């Protein structure tokens, strides 16, 4: 053992004015994947935060250029693996924009059902992990976490019946969807969302009437309206800061115009506002699922049935961008095609990546305990940040 190592002593001032550098991550119980924050502390107060990303970089966009339009959709789910359906949808929508492919109405509705169920599942995980961050693995947080996971499992069971997979689905394909719903599936989905709707009431009662939860979240991590727009956050974050922006409403895709739903907006901009936005989104997603199941039209599920080989889908020369409202915000996919079976260039706009950029603006000035609360309310998924 080198002698210098044993004599190394951490110097900390008793007055709390000397600064302490502390690493949070990449391996840390609340790092939500592999995120590293280098915190500069004065006592318990954070004075600066340095966010380091890239620990999960897998060259995903380059990989997308080596796979054909038929192969990639199932890989696209690996960007945001907690809400896999939305990234698949963004990719196939971008391809459809370039190729000007018409998607049958039934497929559009199926896409909506999948996307909204996915939002419910993703928000379940968010609520659980966020409470786990604030309440600890050995406390009330773990209780909420296990409740949420129990409900998420039900949605994943429905996805398993639909696609055969529980996490990364490969449900979408260029021109429609790959699978139609199995018999009896719609009844099961209705039962599931009814059940979850009741559970959401329970969560709200459990959390909002809990003073400790409220004092931990109210006024913590405030993102002002201006900051939200400057940084370019999206999803529940920007809606929690008073901006009424939702891609489903701003630029309806996949027949979202047919459905009646509310875009929740809160003006406070703190963790509690983001929590409220997501809780309302739970209910709105359930509403949309019900409407889509009620009005599910008959017909083909794909305008390109019977794809025989992986290279068969050809897309004309051109470029296209498609965006969808994922669980975490706006997920965009930009594709340049040179007319071959694979994209010439592709680029993701990860919602988590843009949302994470707000952290250095809002974290300084808070206590260490608030860092994890803010982090959880941003709800990043690192597959999407690092790609």
């Amino acid at each position, binding site marked *: 053992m080198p002698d210098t190592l044993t004599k190394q002593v*951490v110097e900390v001032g008793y007055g709390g004015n000397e600064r302490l550098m502390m690493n949070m991550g990449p391996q*840390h119980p609340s790092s939500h994947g592999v995120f590293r924050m280098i915190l500069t502390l004065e006592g318990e107060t954070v004075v600066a935060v340095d966010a380091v990303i890239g620990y999960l970089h897998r060259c995903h966009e380059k990989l997308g250029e080596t796979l054909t339009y038929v192969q990639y959709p199932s890989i696209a789910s690996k960007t945001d693996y907690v809400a896999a359906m939305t990234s698949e949808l963004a990719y196939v929508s971008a391809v459809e924009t370039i190729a000007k492919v018409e998607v049958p109405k039934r497929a559009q509705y199926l896409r909506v059902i999948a996307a909204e169920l996915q939002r419910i599942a993703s928000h379940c995980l968010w609520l659980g992990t966020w409470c786990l*961050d604030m309440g600890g693995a050995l*406390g*009330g947080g773990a209780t909420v976490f296990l409740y949420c996971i129990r409900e998420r499992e039900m949605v994943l069971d429905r996805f398993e019946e639909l696609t055969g997979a529980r996490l990364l689905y490969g449900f979408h394909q260029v021109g429609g969807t790959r699978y139609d719903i199995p018999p009896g599936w719609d009844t099961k989905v209705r039962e599931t969302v009814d059940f979850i709707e009741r559970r959401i009431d329970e969560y709200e009662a459990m959390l909002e009437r809990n003073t400790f*939860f409220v*004092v931990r979240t109210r006024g913590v991590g405030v993102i002002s309206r201006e900051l939200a727009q400057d940084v370019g956050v999206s999803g529940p974050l920007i809606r929690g800061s008073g901006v009424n922006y939702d891609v489903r409403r701003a630029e309806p895709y996949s027949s979202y115009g047919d459905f009646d739903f509310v875009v929740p907006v809160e003006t406070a901009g703190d963790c509690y506002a983001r929590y409220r936005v997501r809780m309302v989104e739970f209910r709105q997603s359930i509403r949309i699922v019900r409407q889509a199941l009620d009005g599910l039209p008959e017909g083909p599920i794909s305008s390109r049935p019977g794809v025989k080989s992986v290279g068969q889908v050809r897309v004309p020369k051109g470029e296209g961008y498609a965006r969808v409202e994922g669980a975490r915000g706006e997920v965009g996919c930009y594709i340049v095609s040179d007319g071959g079976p694979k994209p010439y260039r592709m680029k993701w706009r990860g919602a988590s990546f843009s949302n994470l950029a707000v952290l250095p603006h809002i974290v300084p000035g808070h206590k*260490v305990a608030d860092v994890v609360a803010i982090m959880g309310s941003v709800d990043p998924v690192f597959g999407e940040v690092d790609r």
Partner: protein
Amino acid sequence: MTLPPVAWYTLEAFIVLNAIILLVTYVTLLERKFAARMQSRIGPYYVGRPHGWLQPIADALKLMIKEDIVPAAADRGVYNLAPIVFLVPCMLIFATIPFAPELGVADLNIGVLFFLAVSSLEIVGLFMGGWGSNNKYALLSAMRAVNQIISYDLPFVFAALVPVLLAGSLQMSAIVTAQEGLWFVFYPLIGQLAFLAYLVATLAAENRVPFDILEAESELVAGFRVEYSGMKFALIQLAEYAHMLGTSFLGALLFLGGWLGPGPAWLGPLWFLGKAVLIFLLVTWVRWSFVRIRVDQILAISWKLLLPATIVLLLATGLVVATRGAGGP
């Protein structure tokens, strides 16, 4: 055959110590099963059927045979000593607790004072662990520990003094005897408020959620014990649970009438144990349903709310005792 007093006390201490350790191990199982029920899980099941009754033994064995790692940069002396310094006061508090009339190691005439004084010594071991580990998480946690325990020892002591005033004695058996007419928790208004303050302060003194900022695994990984492994970790765990159990026993004794209860006299210790477990479960229930609060909020609760409230309560108790006399209503 008569034993010399020293040998007699040693034997008694040995028996109580082992009984407590066994009890503490099984209290962990109780908590795990209880938490599992709350979270719609089953909990320990397979190690020793039915319901994992061998699980605590398996855990203890596992911790004993685990590799003991000392960080290269740790202050070895302090680091190795800390678990013992932490454990000793947590075990010592059981010395004064009478489990039934004449059944205990030493029923001191200043029993409550001894308990309160010794139980607040645990902070020394805790801080030694946090400091000696030479880890930033542990250090922050140790700082928090000092903050929190100093803040909550005062309301804890004041809340515990209410029954003492009512009974007019610091001797634990005398406090129980004073409750023969009415348990102090049923004493109008004062009793309930004092019990509530006692429970809150207990939560903080035991570092349970929502006051578990020293452990705070989502912020500080595991706080002051992040670098501990194997047997030393087991000692720290043992000490924490022993402290929890000790304060539960004290609560049962001060407020719930100790071993008093219907039935023959030999049921006394069982009544006492049952009441202590009830308090333990109450604390566990709170633990598994709240989120943790922040360090500044914890201090605010203590200094701005709990401490003034308990002082006022103590004054009110003094007035009541002065007008109606000590020793029950």
